[in-house]
């Protein structure tokens, strides 16, 4: 009985073999994460320089502005990348140019909402 169980487990292990992520996903993810990291670093440096004049403003003005800028730039990039990725699917499903434009706008809005949830 336990031999059967082990055999079944072995089959299960084969059936649920790990799935390699597509190389394209790996590259895209690395790019997105690197962009966010770079933007955050650049903004951190810019914030330090601009805040040197008046340290009292550091927490009051510069930090929130830096946070919003980092988030906004990264988010816009992500929305565009994600929307662009779905262009083939949209083209295949669209009934015509107007429909395609509508689908593109809807995708943009949907991705913007999703990125807003993720990033902010």
């Amino acid at each position, binding site marked *: 009985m336990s031999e059967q*169980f082990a055999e*079944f*487990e072995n*089959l*299960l*292990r*084969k*059936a*649920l*073999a*790990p*799935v*390699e*992520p*597509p190389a394209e*996903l*790996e590259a*895209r*993810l*690395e790019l*997105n*994460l690197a962009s*966010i*990291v770079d933007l*955050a*670093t650049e903004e*951190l440096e810019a914030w*330090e320089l601009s805040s040197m004049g008046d340290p009292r403003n550091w927490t009051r003005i510069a930090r929130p502005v830096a946070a919003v800028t980092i988030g906004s730039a990264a988010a816009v990039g*992500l929305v565009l990348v*994600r929307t662009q990725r779905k262009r083939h*699917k949209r083209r295949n499903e669209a009934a015509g140019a107007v429909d395609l434009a509508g689908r593109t706008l809807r995708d943009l809005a949907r991705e913007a909402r*999703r990125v807003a949830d*993720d*990033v902010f």
Partner: protein
Amino acid sequence: MASSEHTREHKARLDDAFSALYKAHLRDVYSYSYYRVGNHHDAEDLTEQTFLQAYRHFERAQRESEGRPLRPWLIRIAHNLAANYYRDRSRKPQTPIDDAGVLSAPHTTEDLVEDRDDLKRILAGVQQLPDDRREALIMRFALGMDNREIARALGRTDGATKVLIHRAIRQLEEIVKQDEGPDA
């Protein structure tokens, strides 16, 4: 300035650690996502969102993990996002999953057809399991997580997780037997 230097160094260390986490577990998160949602397109989206969420909360997770592995935390993020995915789209996992591990696993020629049928039946059976049992099996067999890691990812005790996995395998065996028919 010493303070800002410290902040920069701290951030660089965090980014390096996150990069290592990402490289070590991209395949885990993707495999989990794939078996949860059943297609590559949505699995890519889910993986991407998981790492973005993880990046947002990485510092706190690292602090609170007290040196324990962060894989269960990552998988828990993917689990929550997958739950939202189903809620948003009001749908269940798509079946069949037939072009992932089954096709990528090495097979000898003579075993190929028979094995592939068995594996397809098993995969179809996995999709019929209750959510918690299905997830536990994905974590155990696709990701190779041990009971403790799965328990952390699912928010259960080690003992409850062990029972959950045992019952999941038993139930799956029954489903596959029924699918094979009375002569099997």
